[in-house]
């Protein structure tokens, strides 16, 4: 299955509509928003995000791919997803 970048970003968006962040104002998630620094994905969210991405794109993320460089922004995630879909 081939996805356009836009399809990938759209498929990831619902994840950030979830609750549970201790913050005052909502943040719009752009492809280059630092989702870690902004607290949109915390130590607990990272587990959920891995499962979410695996299910949404029917891929498997290996333990050694759980790195900041793959999860810091939606663009980084998109690169990982595209690589996995090969």
């Amino acid at each position, binding site marked *: 299955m081939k996805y356009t970048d836009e399809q990938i970003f759209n498929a990831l968006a619902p994840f950030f509509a979830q609750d549970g962040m201790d913050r005052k104002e909502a943040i719009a998630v752009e492809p280059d928003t630092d989702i*870690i620094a902004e*607290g949109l994905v915390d130590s607990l969210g990272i587990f959920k995000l891995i499962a979410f991405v695996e299910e949404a794109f029917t891929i498997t993320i*290996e333990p050694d791919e759980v790195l900041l460089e793959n999860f810091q922004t939606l663009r980084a995630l998109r690169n990982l997803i595209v690589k996995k879909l090969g």
Partner: protein
Amino acid sequence: MAKRQAAARAAQRSSSMNAVPDSCDVVVIGGGPAGSLAATYLTGKGYSVVLFERQKHPRYQVGESLLPDVWKYCDAAGVSDAIAAEGFLRKAGGSVDWNGEMRRLSFGDFGYTRPALHVERDRFDSILLERARASGAWIGEEIAVLEADLSRAGDNESEVSVSYRPVGEASASRIRCRYVVDASGQTGVIGRQLGLRVFDEGFRFMSVWGYFANSSYLAADGLIYPAQSVRQVPPTTYVSALPQGDGWAWLWHIMLRETTSIGLVIPKAWASETKGSAESWEAWYLKQCRALPLLQRLLADATFCEGSLRLVRNYSYRSSQVAGPGFFLLGDAAGFVDPIFSVGVVFSMYSAYAAAHTIDRCFRQRARRDEHRSIFSSQVQARLELSRSLALPYYQATDAGHARAREAMGFSSMQAQALMYAASLLTDRSGNFDSMADSPHAHRAAAERVRPLNIPLE
């Protein structure tokens, strides 16, 4: 009336004698925050859970100062309303006196919208255990787990059997399960059985603590308030270095609703040098408490609660492995470093969440159990390394865990980093933080938000 009471009593008796099930999906060892939350999360995902607790709640536990992060784990367990309804004291922040530098910080300034708490752990932990019970977990109090047979845990079906014994009974029984979660705190049933526990030579500390009635306290405005104001004016956790303590000994002062918890964290060598052989720990402890002028002021009208003294040595350890075929280690059973940054309970809750998530993934994707477990292990170990690297006196960036700690720091939000930096700055450990993060944001945030603490002289 009498008849109804008798019937209720009989029902209660029969439910407490309800036989332990023969099998379940997951056995949880221990009913502290880690065990109770893991049980709640797992039943919420539809698994059958049996939790054994050696003691009967409410039971004593140290660790009364909780960071605002506890709320997100309580939310996920559906127990936040019950915690809020209990009316624990809200903690406004920290007041720190470190080698002559007096500074304070408040969580509100760091963007936290929900309060940190000072809790009586017997009550707090009971509420969490009751939540686990209400969620459908089978709770067996006063039942001690002896060991787990993991020899067939690597099989396709993951078969584990756990042996337990009700307190006061002579014979043990066994229960079958797929996974065992060790949340037995410092006891560390599985870690000890498998020889996974590694004591930390970097922390040669011990702790001695006790309780006072009627202590005054410091609030977020830097002023001293009498004990009676504690429900109206939220206290801060007051932390002070001990001047004679080698630069690394310190004490905590935590206001609770009826008493005040005051504890010393001291290098073992210093304690054994200064405590006379005939001197009791209590006498030594009270002498240390009197040696600090500010503490002495807070304790001017206070009385020591007789018999409340407690002591722990060798509390710093890690585990060479925090998960393996059929088992997961949580909270203190996985590792505990040092109380300086009050991360113990939050870490317990975090590991409970991570384990429940991972066990669910293992059930759903049996073929990928090893990968899921491996992600759990590296995340949990990295968190432990991060707390250790922040807390360690004389931290060396050449330390083996440094890369892991750096990675965990990188996965922290700016808000979390700013608070970590500020807390490490206040306790003379900012070099530790800087060796793990290049975070101008955290430096700026701390410069703006850490305030001097001026205690007016009488």
